[in-house]
């Protein structure tokens, strides 16, 4: 317990509540979509499964595949080449150069993107254009991308989306710290959840207990999330403006890249497979991301980002001379020499994404994110519903219910669009957006029509349950493989997600059948408020 004066407690409680209410609606959206985004790869595999489970970049055969593709694209596009295993399990290969799109000022990438089969390295799909156009054409990753982008930027244009999510991360940190400070009996009440008391205490306890247990990770996830948002929205453009005349590519090349004197002399490219084998022999790890600069030139550079070894959080980054195939150096991701900044930077990714130990760490991060969403929702409902008889607060309480239970409905409707769109011959990504907006509008209409807040909760939960229950059958009915097929193929993820969605749907329906008091007594004080009075 931290001793605070009554005045200070009152101030902190006000900051905690108001920061939660003012930004809580959007914060809840970011956290909830973050919970889903933890399983982006699994969602990709579930929505567009290959005939087998393959999640790694092949370490042999890439050389031949790269040369074959390099021969068929515009020579300008071999300036930069990258390979990685994407969310849908395809090997995404991007041959590109940098330029400025007509009518825009920020440089971007333009080139040809191939989806390669991870086993045979045969071309599954070919897309050509500017980076944003390629993204729009990518069908296998469409569903996973929808959730990830909603989490990262709320589908707002750059840099506004990143700025908003960065600010929301800061709000989450403020709420975590103030919640920690105002809660007077943090350790003593770790297990105290009074279920048979009045509704106000029951809701307060549910919020406080989940918040207390989730406190360390709420802070970590908020901090790392803010870091990623602000780095993209503000830090990189600002540093580029100050030090590189606004050239962000130059900045990234300087900070992350390798300094090699320019030499445009044509030179044959060394064997990529041999470099991958050498990197594995040096580190014991396999490469997860391959980047090649200036293919076919004397100054060609190959950068191999290795996967973390068993028991490690961070990974190595190896540099090779592309013309000779010789190993050059093991380079930090940031800068040219090892530094504390680089070590901290390397920690940010596993701490935020939770993918450092496969499904085990993802499952824990999912649970932590779910607890975070629960804390945000219960906090908003607690703060607004007990004030709903005061002028203006009734609308906020309704808005909290609308977002709290309407957003899951809108999100649950998106996979239905993903599977139905190809049958109806409409653009998948457009169908996903339209369905999401449509379901959100439907939730709005229901929120305006149903006066009783608990009835509103139950209707929206029932809708979410129905949408979740429909997802797996629709996947199968629209041509997706059945359980026997995916079991034989070793695609356990598909079965696991089908079962998880069916269970989640059933739980939503069950929760919708339970009535709860939605109005909280106004004349009673919460323990924190009593101590602050």
């Amino acid at each position, binding site marked *: 317990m931290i001793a605070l004066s009554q005045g200070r407690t009152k101030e902190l409680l006000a900051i905690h509540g108001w920061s939660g209410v003012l930004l809580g609606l959007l914060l809840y959206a970011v956290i909830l979509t973050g919970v889903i985004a933890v399983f982006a790869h699994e969602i990709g595999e579930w929505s567009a499964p290959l005939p087998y489970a393959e999640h790694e970049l092949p370490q042999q055969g890439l050389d031949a595949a790269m040369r074959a593709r390099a021969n068929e694209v515009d020579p300008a596009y071999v300036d930069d080449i990258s390979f990685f295993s994407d969310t849908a399990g395809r090997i995404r290969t991007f041959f590109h150069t940098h330029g400025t799109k007509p009518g825009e000022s920020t440089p971007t990438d333009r080139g040809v993107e191939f989806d390669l089969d991870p086993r045979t390295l045969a071309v599954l799909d070919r897309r050509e254009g500017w980076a944003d156009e390629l993204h729009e054409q990518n069908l296998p990753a469409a569903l996973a991308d929808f959730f990830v982008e909603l989490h990262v930027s709320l589908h707002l244009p750059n840099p506004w989306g990143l700025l908003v999510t960065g600010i929301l991360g800061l709000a989450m940190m403020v709420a975590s710290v103030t919640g920690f400070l105002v809660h007077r*009996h943090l350790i*003593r*009440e*770790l*297990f*105290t*959840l*009074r*279920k*048979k*008391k009045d509704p106000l205490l029951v809701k307060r*306890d549910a919020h406080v*207990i*989940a918040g207390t*247990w*989730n406190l*360390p*990770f709420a802070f970590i996830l908020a901090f790392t999330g803010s870091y990623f948002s602000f780095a993209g929205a503000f830090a990189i453009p600002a540093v580029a403006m100050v030090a590189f005349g606004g050239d962000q590519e130059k900045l990234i090349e300087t900070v992350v890249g390798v300094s090699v004197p320019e030499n445009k002399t044509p030179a044959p490219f060394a064997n990529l497979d041999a470099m991958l084998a050498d990197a594995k022999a040096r580190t014991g790890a396999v490469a997860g991301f391959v980047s090649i600069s200036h293919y076919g030139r004397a100054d060609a550079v190959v950068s191999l980002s290795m996967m*973390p070894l*068993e*028991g*490690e*959080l961070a990974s190595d980054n190896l540099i090779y001379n592309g013309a000779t195939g010789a190993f050059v150096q093991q380079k930090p991701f940031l800068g040219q020499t090892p530094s504390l900044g680089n070590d901290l930077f390397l920690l940010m990714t*596993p*701490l935020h994404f*939770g993918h*450092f*130990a*496969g499904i*085990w*760490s993802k499952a*824990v*991060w999912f*649970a*932590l994110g779910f*607890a975070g969403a629960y804390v945000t929702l219960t906090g908003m409902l607690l703060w607004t519903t007990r004030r709903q008889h005061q002028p203006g607060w009734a609308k906020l309480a309704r808005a909290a219910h609308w977002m709290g239970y309407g957003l899951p409905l809108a999100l649950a409707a998106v996979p239905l669009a993903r599977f139905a769109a190809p049958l109806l011959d409409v653009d998948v990504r457009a169908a996903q957006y339209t369905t999401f907006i449509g379901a959100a509008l439907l939730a709005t209409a229901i929120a305006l029509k149903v006066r009783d807040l608990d009835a509103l909760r139950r209707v929206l939960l029932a809708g979410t349950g129905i949408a979740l229950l429909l997802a797996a059958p629709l996947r199968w009915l629209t041509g997706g493989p059945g359980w026997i097929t995916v079991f034989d193929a070793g695609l356990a993820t598909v079965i696991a997600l089908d079962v998880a969605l069916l269970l989640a749907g059933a739980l939503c329906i069950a929760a919708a059948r339970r009535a709860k008091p939605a109005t909280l007594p106004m004349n009673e004080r919460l323990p924190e408020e009593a101590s602050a009075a």
Partner: protein
Amino acid sequence: MSLTATAASLTLIASALPLLLLARRDPKRLRSVAGSVLAPHGQRTRQGLAAAALLPGLALMVLGYWPAFLIWLGGITVAGWLFAQGLASRH
């Protein structure tokens, strides 16, 4: 099962048991439950159980198994929350 998953699972189980015992006879929790026949733990017992719950995580830290430690830390916080929810719903 990988070494990380094995280490995380074993330490989580080793920590969850004392945590559950701690939660079950937590004095403040029992005071809020009308008609409970369980006697609350004394202070020394509580401290011992808390230490036993934290010890596996400490071992992972000392051994430098950081991925397993993070899974353990996240898992134990989720377990604590679920124990509080589960024990409350029984009354």
